[in-house]
């Protein structure tokens, strides 16, 4: 079976790992739920351990075989910032498993997979679990820096007088806590502002964004109805585990153009087009995939879902171009490394931070002039929408920052397996002007 597919792909040259590729053996994720709802009392580690534990159990994996756990997490908790290690220490996994937590904004868990890929190819690991987690609900407001410094001094103070003195420099405004925000430090623009800018610059209309939104919800709804999310585990939540979460709570079966067009724009109330509906919702969730070389998978009796053919990460100059163009810059490199063109791809999973960002990237991919404007040589090509995000994307399914990358990879691999297709692309934009693309094959 594998030989036949290898022959089919021969014209592209070798995949990463050559004859012994990196296999995606299995994937599990929690349902993604709206922030501050069902998972609001869960820590990042307790949410992530659900996905990781379920993965090893479903795979019937002898846990001693695991060499590393690598998790993505954007907003790590102050108590236990290496979330992956907390997961190891607080789960069924043996404590001897080394674990790291990586941060590449919305691409974090996809990057965790890239790192795992490298560890497997270099031979320092044979079995790696990679994934990610985000809990918007668990992100805490912080004291302002002046107030924090004052508190430190109070702690060191030896007398009441010193204590009073330490606090005397504090102004009322210093008492207002910093709330977690998604603003870009060097530009001061929020993600939403960047999406707004993109919509305006690349002329993505409100109607286009809303239509895209309705479509992605309807695809996700249909996919759930048809049981295309076997990777989504049931999760028991609530104070007494009385609540069973079986699917992503942000997917709406009843979404229509009428409904989404009612909403007011959020980031630019007067002239804007980005709304709460056509942006990905703030979400909590966790994801994990099991990775190993093809030979190891065979030894352990696994039938992998797909293999990693190539990957690429990029950074764009966000002082000059829009923040969310990662897919446009990363994809040509990943495709080149795979020895492929857009037309060789059977499926594409593009992260939908915003409908506007997805549509703008697609527009650039199909346009010579827009591509040239960005200093790129060749347009990637016109994307067949029937191959894109066939089971819905982040706008519908939700977007727990640290968990999305691995969600995209397992969703693509699962769909390739289901349809028995040979190739697929995952492409992700991330804050900081970062982008990641990955080509999978079977």
């Amino acid at each position, binding site marked *: 079976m594998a030989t036949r597919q290898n022959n089919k792909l021969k014209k592209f040259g070798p995949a990463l790992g050559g004859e012994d590729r990196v296999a995606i053996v299995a994937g599990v994720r929690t349902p993604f739920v709206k922030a501050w709802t069902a998972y609001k009392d869960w820590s990042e580690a307790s949410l992530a351990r659900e996905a990781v534990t379920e993965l090893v*159990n479903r795979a019937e994996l002898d846990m001693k075989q695991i060499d590393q756990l690598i998790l993505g997490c954007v907003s790590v908790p102050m108590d236990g910032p290496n979330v992956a290690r907390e997961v190891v220490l607080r789960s*069924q996994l043996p404590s001897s498993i080394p674990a790291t937590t990586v941060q590449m904004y919305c691409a974090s868990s996809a990057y965790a997979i890239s790192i795992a890929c490298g560890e497997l190819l270099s031979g320092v690991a044979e079995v790696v679990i990679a994934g990610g987690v985000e809990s918007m609900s668990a992100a805490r407001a912080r004291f302002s820096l002046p107030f924090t410094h004052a508190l430190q001094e109070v702690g060191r103070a030896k007398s009441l007088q010193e204590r009073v003195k330490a606090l005397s420099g504090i102004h009322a405004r210093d008492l207002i806590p910093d709330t977690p925000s998604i603003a870009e430090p060097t530009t001061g623009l929020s993600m939403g502002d960047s999406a707004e800018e993109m919509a305006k610059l690349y002329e993505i209309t409100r109607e286009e964004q809303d239509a895209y939104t309705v479509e992605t919800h309807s695809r996700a709804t249909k996919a759930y109805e048809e049981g295309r999310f076997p990777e989504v585990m049931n999760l028991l939540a609530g104070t007494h585990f009385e609540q069973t979460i079986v699917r992503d709570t942000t997917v709406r079966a009843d979404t229509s153009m009428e409904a989404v067009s009612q909403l007011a724009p959020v980031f630019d109330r007067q002239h804007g087009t980005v709304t709460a509906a056509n942006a990905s919702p703030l979400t909590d969730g966790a994801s994990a995939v099991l990775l190993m070389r093809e030979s190891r998978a065979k030894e352990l009796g696994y039938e992998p879902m797909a293999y990693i053919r190539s990957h690429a990460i990029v950074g764009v100059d966000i002082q000059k171009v829009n923040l969310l163009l990662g897919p446009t810059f990363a994809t040509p490199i990943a495709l080149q490394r795979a020895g492929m063109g857009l037309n060789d791809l059977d499926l594409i999973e593009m992260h939908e931070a915003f409908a506007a960002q997805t549509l703008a990237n697609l527009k650039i991919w199909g346009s010579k002039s827009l591509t040239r404007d960005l200093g790129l040589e060749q347009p990637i090509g016109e994307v067949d929408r029937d191959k894109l995000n066939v089971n819905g994307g982040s706008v519908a399914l939700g977007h727990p920052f640290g968990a999305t990358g691995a969600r995209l990879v397992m969703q693509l691999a699962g769909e390739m397996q289901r349809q028995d297709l040979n190739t697929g692309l995952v492409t992700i934009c991330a804050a900081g002007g970062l982008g990641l693309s990955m080509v999978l094959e079977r």
Partner: protein
Amino acid sequence: MARQSAEKLVAVEIEEGIAYVRMDVKGQAVNTLSTPIITRFEEILGSLIHDKSVEGVVLYSGKTDNFVAGFDIGELLELRQDRTKLRELIERGQRLMGQLETLHIPVVAAIDGVCLGGGLELALACHGRIASDQPKTRLGLPEVQLGLIPGGGGTQRLPRKVELSVALDMIVTGRELSAAQALREGLVDDVVHPAILLKVAAEHARKLAKEPPKNGGFAANLSDPVKLAARTPARKIVFNRAREAVLEKSGGHYPAPLCALDVIELGFAEGFDPGLQHEGAVFVDLVSSPEAQNLMNIFFMRQEVNKDSVVAKRVKPLEVEKLGVIGAGLMGAGIAQLAAFKDVPVRMKDANERGLGNGLDAIKQQFDKLVERGRLTEAEADICFGRVSGTTDYRGFRSTDLVIEAVFENLELKQQVLADIEDLGNEELIFATNTSTLPLQKIAENAKRPQNVVGMHFFSPVHKMPLLEIIRTKQTSDVVLATALDFGRKLGKTCIVVEDGPGFFTSRVIGAYINEAAWILQEGGRIEDIDQAMIDFGFPVGPFKLIDEVGFDVAMGASRVLQAGFPDRWRAPEALAVVAAEGRKGRKNQQGFYLYDDKSSGKKVDETIYKRLPTGSDRRHVDRELVQQRCWLAMLNECAYALDEKIVRNARDADIGVIFGLGFPPFRGGVLRYADSLGIDLAVEQLTHLADKFGERLRPAPLLEGMARRGERFYSE
């Protein structure tokens, strides 16, 4: 042990002015005090008096996690009939402690691990105590648990060292303190990392040598610095309250705690030395009391059971690296919780999310309770809870090493679960059933690998009940049995191995007991009278309360199995069936023999039950002793049948089973030990009489009749 050379017990090394006295009783996992070790200590103290180069002494243990576990109970049992020798031994021990206390140089105990009974008394006689900050370090005087009181001055020194209420609690209930608690109560002077324990102890000894505490030196506590509460008339109130509490708890069956209170109080009223004398006299009396002898015997029997390999020693148990539990009900969740607590990863399945959620909730609550009680930190509780993962399908079970099923007591269901597990295709996977009554042979009827099937009968609540009944069939392989035993012990259980048969051992014995109680109910007795009679006998709860707790469905299921299993001699009264037919399930549906509304929560009998019974609402008085006789003799008779049929391996296992699994009063030593003490012939006579009057089911078992004829006993001594 007496043959050991003295140095093998206690060795002395002098280094930079400190004599390091190291206790290490060879051939034992723990240090115990005994005549040879006392002799050796006397020698050492004698030589230290003449050694001018020594400025201080550090007393420590060469064992891991163990300072001294207490006095050698074997020696006490040997001497129990010889009051003179016992008296001598006690006085010698007390004298040694006194010599230690009045030594011209300071002695500091370096306590790492268990420091109990005689061990703590030894430490109390030292001038300073430094403890290690590890969880195994526990300090206590548990003598009452063996029906004794401290005999090495503990009743006098502890109340002078810590608050009176704390001392009373420790001596009367046997409560142990952690190192941190001991520091808080002033029982130890410092708590340090085990790696620097000896160093700190030596420093402390040097400090005491240099700057003896005021009031005339480090031995000043001899001058009776009684705590405030103990000096005032308030003392009387404290002691009386303690007496009431003891009576409430023990039902008056255990003399030792009350004796301890007397001895402590006398020490306060008349002084240290009279207190010490009284302690010794009472100790000697108690050692020969039947309660203490029974409790000491049980202690030994339990040790033996815990060490019994049952199968050939060369059979090595398999490691259970991951446990599967099927059924997240009371028992399943309880087993999963305990395994997770003991570091074992668990995959737990229930038929649906609701059941699974309830199970997870029960597990979480149990860990939360441990946090509340300070046994675990929140992080530790989360680590434990994280070892349990729930599911509603069989994914994750193929990679387990042992699956324990705890689904409803339904034969077809259990057969199905076994078939499902075998279908997973893991040839090594051991299947254990937690059934309390269904014959294993039946459950394993269609098994592909019957050698992998074993019974692991836990008792409720799982985390609390000390017994695990392991059932083997004729096909169960030795390695499977060894694995079940090893795993049960890892969970901290005392395991008895029994053969397959209806109700195995414990369920048929408790079944006979409940059956007899139900007959008395049917004949017109009152529920609360029968229950109270058995509580007076020494059971923690009466038979009807017990049914409410375990559930009518379980009790009725057991009754049916036993009726079918022993058709010739078993007779069940209609009473239980009639009550169960009303839909009563006991506490779990808040409908049982007792009322479970918010007001009475199980304290008041539901009088409406009587109407349904053949004898109606008109209840009559039943004689307490007759109730006790009928119920316990029904147990004895069933034990005898089980022994005769070789269901249970020996009298020892049977008595351990009834005490730790069924709540048979420990001070009676067990069903069979109690029969011995009464006389088998008398038991047979009583049973014959009862059978004539109340029914053939009480006709003495052939084994008992034979023993009575031949004048035999269950135990040789």
